[in-house]
Structure formats: structure tokens, C-alpha cells
């Protein structure tokens, strides 16, 4: 399936692929949720009501319709961007996404930044000095931050680092800050800056430190290893060997050629780590009581709140797909070999 590369055509192909990919995820989630026993009604009221009462409520909510019909209703609603209202807490799903998406966004971005700032330089150093002590130390750091479960690290920080550092143990802000800051963008950090209220900004930043650190360390470890492997591969490549053969010192080769070229595939791979970030965000949010979409997702899954779960997963799917689309396009811009 090789065609001559042309950027607009490539972009179009990738954009068209977005829709089927999202559809696959949605269908999968729909099937799994409906096939699994249980439904929102019995999750909420099973301990209190008789079977007939439960059944009546289920019928009223349309859960006894044939699956195909429910599926079709669901798809057509999604196409209209109507995600309905959650069953377990009476909130329009889009409002849930709007109110909580900002928190997840700020957490993942902060963690991502931290991981970049820490991970890329460390990975470069490790790759450059392969099989030396710095390399081993950095590699072990990368592996350990990946191996330590996010909730373990988060919990350790909460229990032993929060008080000494004067940092809060949970939440995205104090209730007072959440009350007084005007929700313009619904991203608390941005809104706090916009409001100009110094106490609020400080409060929000303080709450962000530990969760971002926890998630950031996890991703940082992955970045270190990825960057390192890419550096190694680049250093083995022919043009590097050629440059060395011409007598250019190792250091200059590394800085001028290898780093820059190694970072190109790293962009791709880092973009793909977004999925890892989201997965880790769920556990981080749970540990730190962070009011984000990941936390909500787990709650809604426990409540079998179909509408809510499907809505949130749609948002996640769209985000992941868009990010990978972006990454692919950036990659195609840089590297002409990629366009097919």
C-alpha cells in the first residue's frame, strides 16, 4: 500500500481514520458494559427495593429494550453530541466532562512537563554514556519510578512528605478557593491566574505539587528509557559512524547530530505515552482525591452508570486519538519517509 507521499493526502487519511477508531472504542465499551451483569438501577437501589420495583425502574429507563435498539439510540445521541444525564448523580454528562476535565488536564500536563524536563535530559545522558555508572544509575532510576505503583508512591508522599513540606494531602484546592474563583475556562489553575487572586493561585499550585510529582515520576521513568534507547539506536547509525570516522570528537557528534535526530522519533513515542498518562491519572486522582475525570470514571463504573461511563470514555478516546493524530502529523512534517 505504498503511495507517493503528499502531506495533505496523508493528513486527510489520518483524519478519516479517527472516526472508525473512536467508533471501535465506543462499541467495545458499550458491549462490555451491557454484557456485564448489573445496571445503574440495581447498583443504586438493589439493597432497598423488591425485584418488581427494580424492574419497573429499569423498564422506565429503557434498559430492557433489545440491545441493538439501545446501541442505535446511543450512537445517534452521541452523533448529536447528546450524552444525556448521569443516573447516579443527576448531572448532564457534558457538564461532568466540563467541570472535571480541566482538573485532569492540568494534572496530566503538569506531570507531562515534569517528565519532559526531567526525563529527556536524563535519557540523553544515559544514552550518551552507555554502560557507565551514570547510565546505570539513571536507568535504575527510570526503572524504579516505573516499577513503583503510582498509588504506592502517591500514598508515601501523602503520608510522609505532605506535612513536613506544608502541602495539602488531597484535592485540587481548598473549598474556599473553589468557591471564590470565577469559572471562566473551567480549568482551575487558569481561572485562578485569570482572577489575579494571589492566595487562590498559591493554593491551587500547592495542591498540584504532590499529584503532579507522583504521576510525573512514573512517566519520567518511561521517557528516560525511551530516550535512551533512541539515542543508542541513533548513535549506532551510519552517519554517526561516518562523522566519527572523519575524526569529529564524540561530544560534538552527539550534540550536533545524534541528539537532534534522536529526538525526532522520541516525539512520536512521547505522544503515544499520552495513553499511559491517562491510565496513570486515574490511579493518581483516586489516591489524591483529585476532582478529575479519571476519579469520576471509576465511581461511575462502580455505579454501572452506563451513560456517564460511555460519555467519559468517549472524551478520553477522542483525546487520545486527536493527540496521536497531532503527533502523526508533526512527524510527517518532519520526516517525509513517514507519509504513505
Amino acid at each position: 500500500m505504498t503511495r507517493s507521499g503528499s502531506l495533505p493526502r496523508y493528513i486527510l487519511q489520518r483524519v478519516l481514520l479517527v472516526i472508525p477508531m473512536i467508533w471501535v472504542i465506543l462499541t467495545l465499551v458499550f458491549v462490555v458494559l451491557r454484557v456485564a451483569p448489573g445496571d445503574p438501577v440495581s447498583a443504586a437501589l438493589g439493597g432497598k427495593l423488591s425485584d418488581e420495583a427494580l424492574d419497573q425502574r429499569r423498564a422506565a429507563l429503557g434498559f430492557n429494550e433489545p440491545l441493538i435498539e439501545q446501541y442505535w439510540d446511543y450512537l445517534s445521541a452521541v452523533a448529536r453530541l447528546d450524552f444525556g444525564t448521569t443516573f447516579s448523580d443527576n448531572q448532564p454528562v457534558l457538564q461532568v466532562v466540563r467541570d472535571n476535565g480541566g482538573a485532569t488536564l492540568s494534572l496530566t500536563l503538569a506531570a507531562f512537563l515534569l517528565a519532559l524536563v526531567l526525563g529527556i535530559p536524563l535519557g540523553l545522558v544515559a544514552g550518551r554514556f552507555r554502560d557507565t555508572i551514570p547510565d546505570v544509575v539513571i536507568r535504575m532510576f527510570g526503572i524504579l519510578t516505573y516499577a513503583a505503583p503510582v498509588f504506592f508512591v502517591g500514598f508515601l508522599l501523602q503520608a510522609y512528605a505532605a506535612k513536613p513540606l506544608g502541602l495539602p494531602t488531597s484535592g485540587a484546592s481548598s473549598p474556599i478557593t473553589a468557591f471564590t474563583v470565577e469559572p471562566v475556562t473551567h480549568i482551575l489553575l487558569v481561572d485562578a491566574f485569570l482572577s489575579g487572586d494571589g492566595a487562590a493561585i498559591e493554593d491551587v499550585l500547592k495542591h498540584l505539587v504532590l499529584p503532579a510529582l507522583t504521576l510525573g515520576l512514573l512517566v519520567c521513568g518511561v521517557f528516560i528509557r525511551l530516550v535512551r534507547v533512541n539515542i543508542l539506536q541513533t548513535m549506532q547509525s551510519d552517519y554517526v559512524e561516518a562523522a566519527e570516522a572523519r575524526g569529529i570528537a564524540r561530544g560534538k557528534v552527539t550534540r550536533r547530530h545524534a541528539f537532534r535526530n534522536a529526538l525526532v522519533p522520541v516525539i512520536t513515542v512521547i505522544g503515544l505515552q499520552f495513553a499511559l498518562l491517562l491510565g496513570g491519572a486515574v490511579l493518581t486522582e483516586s489516591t489524591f482525591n483529585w476532582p478529575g475525570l479519571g476519579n469520576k470514571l471509576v465511581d461511575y463504573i462502580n455505579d454501572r452508570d452506563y451513560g456517564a461511563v460511555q460519555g467519559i470514555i468517549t472524551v478520553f478516546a477522542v483525546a487520545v486519538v486527536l493527540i496521536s493524530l497531532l503527533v502523526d502529523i508533526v512527524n510527517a512534517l518532519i520526516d517525509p519517509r513517514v507519509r504513505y
Partner: protein
Amino acid sequence: MRKKHLLALLGAGTLIVSLAACGDDDDGDGGNGGAGGGVGEPWILGTTDTVTALDPAGSYDLGSSSLEYNLYQTLLTVPANSTDVVGDAAESCEYDDPQTLTCTLKEGLEFSNGNPLTSSDVLYSFERAITIQDANGAAIYLLGSITDTAKDGTVTLNEGAIETPDDTTVIFHLDQPDTTFQYVLTYPGAGAIVDEDTFPADEKLADEEIIGSGPYKLSQYKAGDQAVLEANENYTGDNTGGAPQVFVKYYSEPSALKLAVENGEVNVAWRSLSAPDIADLEGNDDVTVATGQGAEIRYWVWKVDGPVGKDAAVRQAAAQVFDREAIAENAYDGTVDPLNSIVPPGFAGQKDSFEETYGGPDADKAKQILDDAGIQTPAELTVGWTPTHYGPSAEDEANEVERQLEESGLFDVTLKSTEWEQYQTIYKEGAYDLFMLGWFPDYPDADTYLSPFVVDGGFFQNGYSSDEANQLVDAEQGTEDPAEREEIFGQLQDLVAQDVPFIPSWVGQNTAVYGAGMEGVEDTLDPSFIFRFWLVSKSS
């Protein structure tokens, strides 16, 4: 290089923050004004309960009712540490006869938006709750005496069931003698009064927009995150004296809530800290652990129409070796109280029937019971529990029950657990001989622990059916005389202890943990589980 740009950004960010902090004159103590009266400082309540809906027509759970008790008025209510009903929006409600209840509203009642509260609002509230028939709402389940349920499940308000001859009079015509109805009226999910000009007649109102006539009004609501309540200037009732602002913060993990109350991030933590957390906080000097009587119970249900449960002797023998003190101690670190009757203490007419009938755990007596009935020992038994609905200590309790039954030498137990969703279906289908359930009262009357359980198999369909039990329930629901009702409750509890359709395990304590400067928390910890914000205040 990328690194440089990032450093620059960070530097700029820090600069902005420090500059902004210089110009800060607000200590962050509640920005928006408009808070009317109120005593003392704003305070923060932390909880792990979840809110289903703040529109009464759509709620039937404690998380929602906790806020609703403070935001709305009901016709009647239960004052702290009492089982009498007193008037809230109503001056009083009297039974003309066991099927007619007349309520007289107080004069000059207003909602927080200034609209007057009259009998038409009361009628509207009931009508819309029944029309909406929300799956999560309490109205259609608790208002059986003024509604009719059709074959397909549609619930309609009985014709003429609610009469409003004038602005301050509401008359309820019940379709059967039902003296529990006055108690049902105290529950916001069934009887909260909403503003007919604000709430739609056929669908729920969005949580952030609700209007009530209670001592507080809702100033901000972020589902699953926090709610902010401020004193209602238009409130004319007696429940005043609380803080001008109350923040309610929602936590998904009890351990996070515990850390928060330890570090002073919340002033009061109420529901639900785990048993080890509470035990640990008791040793902490910065906070106080206050407990009052509770009303949440845990009980073990027999599948009476199953192969093992059908023998009364087996059920009685198990009740004879059941050591609820050990459960309370080992599984819950003493943070719950052993429960000796299906009705917990604090409700009029309660008696410790199981203790009276069986005394302490005694394996020999139990063996006697089984031998007398000719049951072979050890009797094989499948015991079921669920890990995902009753908290982590449910596991401890299930293990403990298994141990007790087996150590008596009389039972051979297979312990099984299923996730809650499946559990609810399969326990009704007979997957277990003995299984764990929990219960929360719907209204402050012993009937709420009896009629849903003993009448024709109960809501859990365990196959227990007793004419005597049915008659007794009808009798207590049909008479208004408190002494007579208490007598009947006693008989019912004795009957339960005799027939053992289920074994009560423990009753939870109503526990709250609060930090420095908080007053009045103990006053609201009673079996009704109403957290009365107006009783609590914070001094700086």
C-alpha cells in the same frame, strides 16, 4: 533548546505568583457576600457520601438527604436525640383518624428567593415527585398510602388524597390506616417542600438551581467535589444559630478524608471513616472523636425456603453461636455496637430480643437445639457476602462469622463472595444459605426495620412468611397509640428472635471527628442521621 524555554516559563510563573501574593489583602475567608445572619466562622465538612440529586423528587440516599435536611423544610421533623415528631413547616399535624392526617402550616413562611410558602406548594411538591417517578426518588416507594401502583408499575396519586382547603391547611387522606405516614413526612426525599414557581412539574431541576425554605440555601454546587451552603435570610423557623457559611467537601477515599481532618483541611469529618482510622484518631490530640447512637445496621439473612435454611433448628443454632461482640471487636475495632435485635436501640419499642432468647454464644446449647431436631452435624452451609458495597471491613466480618460457625464444630462453612451487582441477583436465587445485608432507616420509627423485612419474604425475598408477623405489622400500622405500638414492636422482635429469618449483627455508631474550635457537633449525632448544620458553629 526546549529546556531553556521551560525554565523561562517557570521563572515567569514564580514571579507572577510572588507579585500577586504581595498584593493580597483577602485572607481567603469566604469571598461572596450575601451571607445573612449566622454565628461564628465558616467551617468545612468532609464526607465520603455521594449525592444522587438535590431535587427531592430524585433522591433516596443519605448523601442527598444530608444536604436536603438543611436546605428544605418538611411538614414535620425529628429534633435531635428524640423520636417525637415536631412541626417544621407545619405548626402541627394531627391524625383525625388513622386514615386522615391534617397539617396546619405556620404563617409567613418564605423560600430563600422570597416566594411565599403555602399549601399549594406542598401539594405541588407531592404531585411532581409522583409524576416524575424518578428511579432514584423516594416518593413512589414511601408514599404507598396516598398512591396507587398500576400493573405496569406506573404510580399515580390517589384522587383527592391531598386536600388544601386554604393556604395553611393540608389534609392527607390515606387509603389504609397508616400511622407511619407522619414519620414518612419527615424524610425530605418524600416530603420536602419545593417552590412551585421554580421547580418544573414533570422533570427534575438541575442541582445547582434548587430553592428551598430551610435554614440554609445552596450557593455553589460542584457534583462530587463540593457544595457551599449559606444562611438563608428568609428563614423564619427555629433552627438558627449556625455558621454563615458551610462548605461540604466530598472525598472518594476514607483514607484521604482521614488525612484531611488530621491536617485541618476539613473541620469536621462525618461518614465514613474506617474502623482503623477512627481508632487511630482517638489517640490524636488535635482532633476529637464524637460518637452518638447510630441506625445503620448489618444483618445476616437466611434463605428460609432453601435446603438448609428451611430447618428452624439450623437457624436457631446459628443464632445461638453467633458472637456479635467478637465481630464488633475483631472486625470493626469496637467502632460498632453489637445488635441484639433487628430494631436498633433508640427507637421506641426496641427490645434486645436475641439476647433475651439466646443469651451469650453457647456451642453446647446450639448442639442441643440441633440434636433435638435430629439435624446431623456438622451441617453444611454456604455463606455469602459482597466486597464492593459495604466497605472493606465486610471482609473481616465475613471471615469472623465463618470462624465462629466452624469453631463451634456444628457447621461446615463454604464462604463465597460476589461483587455487589451479581450479589443482589443471586442471593435472591438461592446462591447462599446465609448472606450479609445492610440497612438504613427510611424514617424514625421501628416499623422501618420490620415491615420491609418480615412481610412475605421481605424485599430480599428470603421466603419467610408468617401470618402472625403480618398481623402484627398491620396492627402497629393501624393504631396511633404509642404504648400499643411499642407493645406490638416488642412482640414482633420476639417473634423474629424465635423464627430467626435473619440474624442481626451490629448497629453502627454515628461518628464524627472534628478539629479545634468546633462546637455543637455532638448535639446532632443521633440515630436519625440528620446532620443539623444549624447546631454547629466554629469559633476562631
